């Protein structure tokens, strides 16, 4: 019985560990997408944040400076995205793709130039340069995990219960109406994009200075896209998106445990299949086979103010 309890506890902890960056990223992405700005650049923001977070933590020896640098880096990426998509009304998907590719290259180029370790940052060995578990040493429950858990009700409250949230939703559905009411569409969308950068920054910091002890190239490994999938899977709602993140996190935790195990009646389940499941499930959902996911109406459409 104790064994079972231990397995349940360890699996739950592992799920939360892998779900944390997804949750933070998904909450960030929700703000952006709710305001009508598509964000396929979550991956790049998170990667940039992970790199600058680990660099700052390595140089200053302080995890908190790491978090600050991570948020700063993600915010610069967010502002670039906003500048291209809001001010210059560029194609939002193109901008997101550009930022992803830029981040994939720039982190390695700068990392190699600064630390000479093939794109990695120095391992964070100093005391205080990493976020450590608070209550359970083996569960990895550092402060960013709790921040991720808190981000969900916060996002829900901000979007569903505040004037800002009401306007944010309106600007994603019908920007013309918001504009006609005398509220600036651009400023609202910029704030949404900045909120997105903040959370993506936390997610990146989690990867490089909490879950791992340093940055390694391409360490986001598609998690930004899984977060995007979770947003869609959660039908652009905070709590359902949170649920999707937990499911995807659980899949990941189970994939590691199932490696080489024969499941009765099925045989050995390939790890790669479980890894691809979040994407496959999201596509089934998008195809209308499991309910229906309806995006904000004005998503992806630059707003052109009439003169």
């Amino acid at each position, binding site marked *: 019985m104790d064994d079972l309890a231990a397995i349940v506890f360890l699996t739950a902890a592992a799920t939360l560990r892998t779900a944390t960056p997804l949750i933070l990223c998904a909450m960030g992405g929700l703000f952006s997408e709710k305001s009508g700005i*598509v964000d396929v650049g979550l991956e790049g923001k998170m990667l940039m944040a992970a790199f600058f977070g680990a660099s700052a933590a390595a140089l200053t020896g302080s995890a908190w400076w790491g978090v600050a640098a991570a948020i700063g880096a993600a915010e610069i990426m967010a502002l670039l995205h906003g500048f*291209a998509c809001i001010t210059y009304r560029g194609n939002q998907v193109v901008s997101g793709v*550009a930022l992803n*590719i830029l981040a994939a290259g720039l982190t390695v180029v700068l990392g*190699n*130039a600064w630390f000479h370790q093939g794109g990695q940052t120095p391992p964070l060995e100093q005391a205080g340069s990493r976020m450590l578990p608070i209550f359970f040493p083996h569960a990895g429950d550092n402060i960013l995990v709790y921040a991720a858990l808190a981000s969900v009700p916060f996002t829900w409250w901000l979007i569903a219960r505040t004037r800002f949230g009401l306007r944010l939703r309106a600007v994603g559905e019908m920007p013309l109406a918001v504009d006609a009411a005398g509220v600036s569409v651009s400023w609202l969308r910029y704030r949404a994009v900045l909120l997105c950068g903040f959370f993506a920054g936390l997610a990146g910091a989690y990867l490089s200075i909490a879950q791992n002890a340093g940055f390694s190239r391409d360490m986001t490994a598609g998690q930004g896209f899984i977060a995007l*999938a979770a947003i869609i899977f959660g039908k652009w709602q905070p709590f359902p998106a949170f649920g999707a993140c937990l499911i995807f996190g659980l899949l990941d935790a189970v994939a590691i445990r199932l490696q080489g195990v024969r499941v009765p009646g099925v045989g050995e389940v390939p790890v*790669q299949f479980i890894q691809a499941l979040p994407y496959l499930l999201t596509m089934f959902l998008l195809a209308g086979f499991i309910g229906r996911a309806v995006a904000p109406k004005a998503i992806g459409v630059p707003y052109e103010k009439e003169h």
Partner: protein
Amino acid sequence: MKLARGPLPRWAEILLLPLINIALAFLVVGIIVRIIGVDPFHALDRLVLGAVGSPESIGYTLYYATNFIFTGLAVAVAFHGGLFNIGGEGQAYIGGLGCGLAILALDRYLPGWLMAPIAIAAAALFGAAWAAVPAWLQAWRGSHIVITTIMFNFVASALMVYLLVNVLIAPGSMTPQSRNFEPSGELPALPGSALNLSILLALACCVLMWLFLWHTRWGYALRAMGHNPEAAHYAGTDLKRMTLLGMCLSGALAGFVGVNELMGVHHRIVLDFPAGYGFAGIAVALMGRNHPVGVVLAALLFGALQQGGAELAFDEPRITREMVVVIQGLVILFSGALEHLPRPWLAVLLPRRG
């Protein structure tokens, strides 16, 4: 800030604006190189020498350009239909799988002149099939092609790892790769470089795409759909079938990366051979303004950057090959998302028409 959006003279739209955008991208690259502590002009010097300084390096430049032509055309043909295919990476991967499977099945029985067309057709077929699913999902089930093609990249990658680790791995091999192809499954290559006959296939694809887009009924319908789907629908175009057609062509073109990489160079199925070419195709298409001639020019530039960048990284340890990825990202940013950036200033500087 007020943005003037008046039309610029035609030559400025076609030539000046794209050139300024690319110049801006390279200006930022220069600044980054400077920050790293390398003299940008010295770096440029080494890069050009590395790209075209010897027959071998020219061969490599053209070999890289071949991949960029394939993925650039793939993105461009979809763009013409108003479709944004971000799945070139996965389509190239699966196209390579098709190419490799055909060779592994038949290379012991067929001569090279018969093997090559079959393998090329298989690459096109598999690449097209991998693009057809997102196309079908968009046209018939209403899910957005951008999201589904992204997801399909990851699914393709997981599938290939599974197949190479568990199914296709050569007996006794420690690395996940298939057995070597027999000579009939190899394309003739220039000695001393990776340049192989695939480049002729790439150039043929350019001509065929030009003919298709501007001289056939279907090409016209595809472009009409890209310009104005409602009008195209009203004119009797079946938008669903056009979506499927555009994406299948796009996927087939991306699949040819597998021909260049596997038949031309590796001579077996390996992991991760698309190596970012699918994404780079977006930069190539944007820079080449979605025209085959532009795509070839942009592909040559990116091929030279890839080869020259490798040589530069060898000479100059502070710069890594990923510099090329940075350049690709910046080109997409400046010629894609920020393409209107110089417009207000140009509108002020240039005399208006009419």
